[in-house]
């Protein structure tokens, strides 16, 4: 779908020759097995004025990374780059040979990859990798390079800038590593920086700080930047110009503000709509409690007196009624997935009960009856790894039919077709292998596999995280409909508070393995929250260009505490409203009120602080 492109608005780059980056008629093709060439990116044109940021927006497969890499003369899988003009500064990238390009990469054009954890070499110290661009391009000696790196670490607000470089990548946090990669890119003072989804792999609370650091560092260096992202709200915070891509074609381009307020193409409007999830009505759930989780303690390692060697979950409990959805949110490492594994019996709890319609279930899966197993089904985050690539869709869905319901032959065949109808996949796909399906289709098959068991409880572990926003929204719609029609109780695990807010009837917030807040959707807005919930809500970027600037830097912790006793509030070291003499000495009390529960000294008291 290509729409007629509007001429650049008057506020845009008026004189393209003054631009730092100019791209005209860029096409990138790959060779097909039959000898013909297929364009993965076609007829791309844009320009970026010096010192400004242009965002390439699109879903997976839109060609955004391919275009960004072409600016460095780099293509994956032997693709061929062709352009009428591909200019960065005074360099004609399309005309440069490999050795000339090598001299430019990492010196005049730098790249920041999506996952710093993967882009750093695990066997070498961080510093040696950060200063490598200076050394291989002969821009500085080792000592000077080191000094420059330390200065950059300091300006990126990294802890202990003098020594952090001596660590290995696995010894620093994800947010720190992402900032260290920014240092690696900026150390040579490049004229163009390419940022490829640099905050996508981060927790939302970390993303804010990293975005802020990136924005300041790029502004300070005066570099021009191309920012690749699928997330409109994030892009809004950093870029002046936006190019919207779909299937390798340009759909729309213009000033960020204009694109956000007056999108011209249907596709941009779809993207904008998907980024603001519609609030779904609360389900009129039946009153019977299908799933009850009662003060679960769980973790890894040997269990001594009801406590595992490495505890993950502490005292987590909730109930889910038939047909309703409980949303579980928290940062990575908060124990969300562990909770799903405990309920499913994959990880036996150390203490506490999981009850199905009031009947306690054996803790370990091996001790549960087939009927008990059937009634709780888990949908894994990553359909790519959850589906056996050697099996057809029909094999995958027919397996639980045979296992739980004894369906074989024609009956199973008919039921698979019914299930495919239910998840809205064409029946013709049944004989394909899962590797031949798109990401969204795979996730639907993953869902159908769970539904084939006809469960009472569906555990969805980050089922939309690996999907594009639009595709993910469709999966959410499907789950929402199914649970209403089939009366399935759903536990929906996610790191994305806006999805959970829109989608779930009740919200459970986990922090470091503890349930710090439980709140019905109806009471979520306009009520006070646990300080951690507040932080999560405040960290979700708005579709407002001033959001990052106006959002005050997250308030630092109120109390300086290094190590806390296990019974104290786990959020204490980060809590901006902690009360000295109370939070650091007494365990947080649980305030229950009007169906809401908050584990905090502030809650319910006169100071009911966090707004």
């Amino acid at each position: 779908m290509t729409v007629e492109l509007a001429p650049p608005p008057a506020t845009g780059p008026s004189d393209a020759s003054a631009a730092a980056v100019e791209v005209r008629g860029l096409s990138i093709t790959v060779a097909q097995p039959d000898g013909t060439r297929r364009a993965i990116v076609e007829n791309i044109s844009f320009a970026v004025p010096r010192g400004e940021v242009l965002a390439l927006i699109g879903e997976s497969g839109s060609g955004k990374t391919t275009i960004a890499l072409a600016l460095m003369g780099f293509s994956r899988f032997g693709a061929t780059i062709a352009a009428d003009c591909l200019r960065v500064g005074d360099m004609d990238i399309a005309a440069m040979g490999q050795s000339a390009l090598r001299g430019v990469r990492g010196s005049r054009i730098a790249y920041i990859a999506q996952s710093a954890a993967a882009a750093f070499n695990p066997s070498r110290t961080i510093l040696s990798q950060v200063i490598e661009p200076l050394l291989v391009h002969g821009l500085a000696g080792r000592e000077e390079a080191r000094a420059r790196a330390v200065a950059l670490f300091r300006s990126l607000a990294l802890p202990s800038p003098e020594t952090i470089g001596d660590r290995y990548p696995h010894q620093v946090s994800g947010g720190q590593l992402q900032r260290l990669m920014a240092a690696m890119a900026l150390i040579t003072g490049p004229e163009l920086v390419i940022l490829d989804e640099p905050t996508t792999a981060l927790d939302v609370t970390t993303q804010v700080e990293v975005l802020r650091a990136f924005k300041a560092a790029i502004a300070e260096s005066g570099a021009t930047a191309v920012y690749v992202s699928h997330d409109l709200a994030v892009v809004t915070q950093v870029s002046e110009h936006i190019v919207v891509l779909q299937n390798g074609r340009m759909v729309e381009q213009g000033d960020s503000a204009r694109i956000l307020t007056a999108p011209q193409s249907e596709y941009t409007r779809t993207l904008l709509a998907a980024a603001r999830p519609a609030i779904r009505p609360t389900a009129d759930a039946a009153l019977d409690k299908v799933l009850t989780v009662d003060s679960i303690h769980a973790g890894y390692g040997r269990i001594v007196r009801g406590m595992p060697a490495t505890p993950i979950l502490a005292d987590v409990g909730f109930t889910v009624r038939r047909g309703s959805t409980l949303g579980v949110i928290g940062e990575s490492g908060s124990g969300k997935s562990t909770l799903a594994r405990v309920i499913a019996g994959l990880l036996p709890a150390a203490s506490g009960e999981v009850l199905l319609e009031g009947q306690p279930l054996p803790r370990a899966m091996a001790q549960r009856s087939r009927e008990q197993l059937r009634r709780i089904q888990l949908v894994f985050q990553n359909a790519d790894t959850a589906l056996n690539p050697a099996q057809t869709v029909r094999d995958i869905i027919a397996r639980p039919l045979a296992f739980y319901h004894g369906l074989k032959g024609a009956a199973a065949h008919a039921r698979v077709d019914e299930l495919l109808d239910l998840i809205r996949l064409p029946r013709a796909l049944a004989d394909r292998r899962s590797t031949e399906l798109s990401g969204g289709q795979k996730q639907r098959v993953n869902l159908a596999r769970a539904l084939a068991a006809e469960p009472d409880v569906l555990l969805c572990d980050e089922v939309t995280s690996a999907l594009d926003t639009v595709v993910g929204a469709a999966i959410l719609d499907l789950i929402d409909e199914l649970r209403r029609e089939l009366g399935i109780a759903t536990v929906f695990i996610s790191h994305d508070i806006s999805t959970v807010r829109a989608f779930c009837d009740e919200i459970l917030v986990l922090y470091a393995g503890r349930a710090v807040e439980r709140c019905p959707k109806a009471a979520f807005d306009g009520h006070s929250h646990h300080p951690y919930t507040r932080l999560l809500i405040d960290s979700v970027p708005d579709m407002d260009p001033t959001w990052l600037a106006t959002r005050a830097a997250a308030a630092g912790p109120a109390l300086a505490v290094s190590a806390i006793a296990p019974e104290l509030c786990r959020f204490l070291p980060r809590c901006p409203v902690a009360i000295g003499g109370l939070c650091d000495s007494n365990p947080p009390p649980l305030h229950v009120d009007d169906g809401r529960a908050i584990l905090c000294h502030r809650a319910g008291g006169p100071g009911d602080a966090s707004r």
Partner: protein
Amino acid sequence: MTAAPPTRSAAARLLPMIAGRIASSLLTLFLVSVVIFVASSLLPGDAAQELLGQSATPAQIAALRHEMGLDQPGPVRFVHWLGALLHGDPGVSFVANMPVSDIIANRLPNSLLLAAITALISIVLALTIGIASAINRGGRIDSALNIATLSLVAIPEFLIATLAVLAFSVKLLWLPSISLVTPETGWAETLRALALPVLSLTCVVVAQMARMTRAAVADQLDRPYVEMARLKGVPFGRIVLFHVMPNAIGPVINAMALSLSYLMGGALVVETIFNYPGLASLMVNAVTSRDMPLLQSCAMIFCATYLALMLVADIVAILANPRLRA
């Protein structure tokens, strides 16, 4: 997760790990010694009978058995044997009637020399072949090297050795067909004598090592950090040496240790063809003549070499992994 600075306690965590590996190697060696002792006493035949021949009377045999300590119960003999071995005394050969240590001292340097030269050449060759085919994956060089290494694996070593003799000794008259080395032989002469055995053995071990190197390097070349290094403008040779190799070295060393352990005990065919006085042929002679002390000592040497190589590979893998090292 923010870990402590790397300097703290790196050695404190490494040493117990390495000590553990050494301890388990020693335990394995002890178990191996039990197996060797039991297995060798299960061998049919009797050294006393073998020595005295068919005409010996039962009384003569019993007397000799007593003299050799063969009439004592197995566990007692085992303890005596192991105790003596720990003191560096592997006993006296039944057949040659001289200390086993002297016999082995005669042969061990030959085997070590052959193994060392072969190891040196094949490691360099295997790394070169493995890396060259990994970075040319799917290309012509890769296919050619693949075919070459696979053919080498498939051809039995006696055939390689025989063909090499035919070519270099019989036709070209460049190299001797029999490898006679004595302590008096000069260096140049020794190397000439060793050329054909080394060639044959290299062909046997290099293929396996090269293929494992290729797999390990190719696996690393697909990692995102390699693309990142290219986008930093790092020259490709430097990427292979400084980015890929530190990550590939663990599996590569492991594969090499497995292959190289063949060079001590597995050199039998080559030793036989070239009449080379090494340990493997010594051990075969010990089996045929029921010379238990000699047989046991040879077996212990082979097993100890194998375990030592595995230990080295383990320690290198630990040291190469920063998650364990720092």
